[in-house]
């Protein structure tokens, strides 16, 4: 079985991350959102992508993916980051 191990990203639950979470859900149909006090943890089997364009569309302004650092709590998976996409994935 390949590409089914879950990756996750956890973000602070605040107004900055609402559009990011929306973008993730729209770009990753298999994403599952778990809400905890002050924290949102999004799991996704195999691979999860955060697209700059999707976040910008919802935020209504330019967004540098490195801004994720400010509200990031944790993640699981290997990371590949460029200007346009922040990808979490497992190779197995």
């Amino acid at each position: 079985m390949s590409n089914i191990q879950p990756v996750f990203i956890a973000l602070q639950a605040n107004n900055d991350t609402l559009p990011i979470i929306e973008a993730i859900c729209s770009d990753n149909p298999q994403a599952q959102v778990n809400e905890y006090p002050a924290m949102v943890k999004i799991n996704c089997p195999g691979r999860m992508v955060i697209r700059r364009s999707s976040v910008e569309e919802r935020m209504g302004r330019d967004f540098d993916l490195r801004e994720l650092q400010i509200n990031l709590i944790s993640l699981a998976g290997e990371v590949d980051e460029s200007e346009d996409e922040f990808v979490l994935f497992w190779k197995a």
Partner: protein
Amino acid sequence: MAADGDLKPIKKLSLKENYALLTRGLGWEPTYEKKEEIFRTIDFEGIKIHDWEKWEDPFRLTMDAYWKYQGEKERKLYAIIDAFQQNNGQFNVTDARYVQALKLFLNGIVGLEYASHRGFNILGREFPGVGPRIAAQMQAIDELRHATTQIHAISHYNRFFEGMADFPHQFDRVWYLSIPKSFFEDAVSSGPFEFIVAISFAFEYVLTNLAFMPWMSGAAFNGDMSTVSFGFSAQSDEARHMTLGIEVIKFLLEQDPDNVPLVQKWIDKWFWRGYRLLALLATMMDYMLPKRVMSWSEAWTIYYEENGGALFADLARYGIRPPKYADVTIKEKQRVSHEMWSIFYSVRNAVGFPVWLPSAEEMDWFSEKYPDTFDRYYRPRFEHWRELEEKGTPFTNMTLPQLCQVCQWPCIYTEPDDPTEFVHRETEYQGETFHFCSDGCKDIFCNEPEKYVHAWLPVHQIYQGNCFPEGADPTAPDFNPLVAALQYMGIKPGVDGGLMSQHVDASRWEQWTSRPANLHEGAITQAVRKTT
């Protein structure tokens, strides 16, 4: 270049180009010093690196972005800390028991952030590759930021509650704080590759989610705006550190097949060392949060079994298997917090915070969350101890415990397959007997006995007379070695430990807030108005 009117503006560099310039363009090969004399610790562990250029930091963070986003995190954090302090936030947490967990955090964990700062400074100096050196230097700065923001945030609580004023003194001396202290000193005193596998991978990648996700979320749930803010602010760096951890592992494994068994040995060792350290956290989560988000058992299932499972499935392609004794951690997940709290309760006069028995409501929660163990093994014990408290003869243990030579916990854990039998392992080395809490700790000792025979075990040191305050006279007729040892540790008998219901934090809490110090048990003073 601005003076040259004809020059076209330089095309903005991509993230990858920027990072490449920082980590490739700024390094140089030494010419007038031998490389092995500059990087003296890089070979002795046996790790083989053929090409440091293969190191790639997936976040590709450059210095301009690092300072910009770190600055923004700090402004955000301090805005919240200011608001918390201005609004008497320390009185808005659930009850005075919650504050006791902060004492453990400040006295036991903040020192680790500083130790980590030191460790990554060493790596920033010792690694020949520019990429990992920059990552280590950034992390060293992060860790210092964590230590200072945590001290700063908790300093406000110190104005209102006991047991926080002497945290550096306590970190170096208190018997149970030798557990976290020795963990990090063990890592810092190993080689650079073992350190980074230990801390970045085994501890940060595999285990710290348990500390900063469910526990910090629990702090938020209990109304502690200040702690959750420094916790999440630190954790935002931690996500980068974790990524460093997995990058390190992949890099080492891809560089040479001979690295695989060394890395596996370190994963086994540091997973177990880290897991034993987290027993403290299991206790904080299950017993010290008056309002709970999830149990230790649930957290272990999510963050180790599910997420760790995914990680080790990914690493299997390199020939790496899940850590040895991971199965024992799963067997222990229904027991460890209850065993720990029992110990803290029974030695409560020798700890730096007051303890309490779980309320009826809390015991029902435990029955639900721990269906296989709580009612069978722990409820009867706590009910018996409650009866003794009510009779005015609470159970106390005045004997100093046998410590494990490796993790330094008292040997309090039970057999993986029998929760009614203590684990006790021992081995002989150079004619002396050494004791362990588990097979995991015994294995670590047997692999490196020459290191662990040097362990500074508080109980042994007390018995040897090395833990008395300056000027103490052990020959004086009224000399009490245990009282003297507590004074040496910075624990004030009758002030710091004992029962919560008799503690000064509890009575002051009720005077200042008019709310019960223990929200499940009702008021202990007249300061709380009766509402029925």
